[in-house]
């Protein structure tokens, strides 16, 4: 049974299943670093319908230097991670529509680490609102 | 007289010239490891080619020589970081999951290698086959 994390934005909660089969090391280290509380969630500029947060933790130094499963497309309802073990940090992104991880110099690869459970509309709305309303606070914690 | 190798696959045989001038370290390392007998499978990212994983050729610190990205039909290439030896039979490129890469072009098949290359191509639809590479005595 995969471990699950709860995401809270603007009073909206959603649960993600950790994709342990696809990224066992990355998901394990993220799990160990939880909770990530009151992080700043911003809308992406280059990656389409997605929001991102940055997090630092000494545990992230153990993140793999290469993606265990590399993707550029960020499917709706999925959480992906751009791993930065050399900086003891990572960037997490969540998509509410059509999204692809991009930098000014083109597409880059990330690791899918979580998939939303259930229907997700409330979370997608909260994510989309960052486009017009600006940054919001996000908390990720282990789901009970 | 350039060194040559003989390849055998699914009842077919081909001969290849080793490019000692363009890839001297790679050629010597391969020559020293012969004979090699490994499973040839079709590539999944690089197009029209088959590949073996040759453990003795795996060395992430080994330099690329005669560096290419695109593979010409009938050419043999090594990716030292994986120990992957590829034989291309059509349009192919050194690619991986994260994009385009590079390899050492160290040998080229000579003469009529069409039956051998056809056997390489058939691995896509028929599955893996056993490849033998040995020194060709002149």
């Amino acid at each position: 049974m995969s471990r699950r994390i709860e995401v809270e934005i603007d009073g909206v909660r959603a649960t993600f299943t950790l994709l342990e089969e696809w990224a066992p090391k990355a998901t394990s280290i993220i799990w160990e670093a939880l909770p990530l509380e009151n992080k700043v969630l911003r809308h992406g500029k280059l990656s389409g319908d997605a929001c991102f947060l940055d997090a630092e933790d000494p545990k992230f130094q153990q993140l793999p230097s290469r993606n265990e499963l590399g993707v550029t497309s960020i499917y709706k309802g999925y959480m992906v991670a751009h791993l930065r073990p050399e900086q003891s940090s990572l960037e997490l992104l969540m998509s509410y529509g059509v999204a692809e991880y991009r930098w000014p110099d083109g597409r880059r690869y990330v690791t899918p680490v979580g998939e939303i459970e259930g229907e997700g509309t409330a979370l997608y709305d909260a994510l989309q609102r960052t486009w017009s309303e600006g940054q919001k606070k996000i908390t990720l914690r282990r789901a009970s | 007289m350039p060194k040559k190798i003989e390849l055998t696959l699914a009842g077919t045989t081909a001969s290849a010239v080793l490019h000692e001038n363009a890839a001297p370290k790679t050629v010597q390392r391969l020559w020293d490891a012969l004979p090699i007998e490994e499973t040839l499978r079709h590539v999944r990212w690089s197009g029209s080619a088959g590949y073996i994983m040759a453990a003795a050729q795996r060395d992430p610190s080994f330099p690329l020589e005669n560096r290419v990205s695109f593979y010409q039909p009938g050419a043999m290439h090594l990716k030292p970081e994986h120990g992957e030896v590829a034989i291309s039979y059509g349009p192919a490129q050194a690619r991986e999951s994260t994009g385009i890469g590079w390899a050492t072009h160290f040998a080229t098949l000579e003469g009529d290698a069409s039956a051998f290359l056809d056997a390489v191509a058939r691995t896509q639809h028929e599955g893996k086959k056993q490849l033998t590479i040995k020194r060709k005595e002149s």
Partner: protein
Amino acid sequence: MARQIRIEVDGVSAVAELCEDLSPKTAEAFWQTLPIETTLMPAKWSGNACFFEPGGEHLKQLSTNEAPVASIYPGYLVTRPGGTEALIAYGASEYRWATGTDYTTRVARVKDRNSELLKVLARTHDEGDKKIKISRA
């Protein structure tokens, strides 16, 4: 609830859910094409995936992608505009041709990430082509 299809290869089957919310036109066209029984072949540019030709006329009517993606997540079935080919990924996969990366449309996904079907698909790397049957579940 999304419509479901059954995918069978080498006697192993799995249920997949159509991506009707993401790709309604493509999902409908694929549904109308069923049943499919054809050859499944290992990909040579797109990584850990297999491809087949769906056939039929409905997918040919589609000229554009819906919610396009380049990455094919494991367990997802995708097709290209015009419906000339469809792919199912069993591991890391990206839709590519000789000329580079391209985009595709998600049609269905196998819900069980541990499905035995994905292991059967992975065997095509060693074993070559197999027969695939896809039907309405």
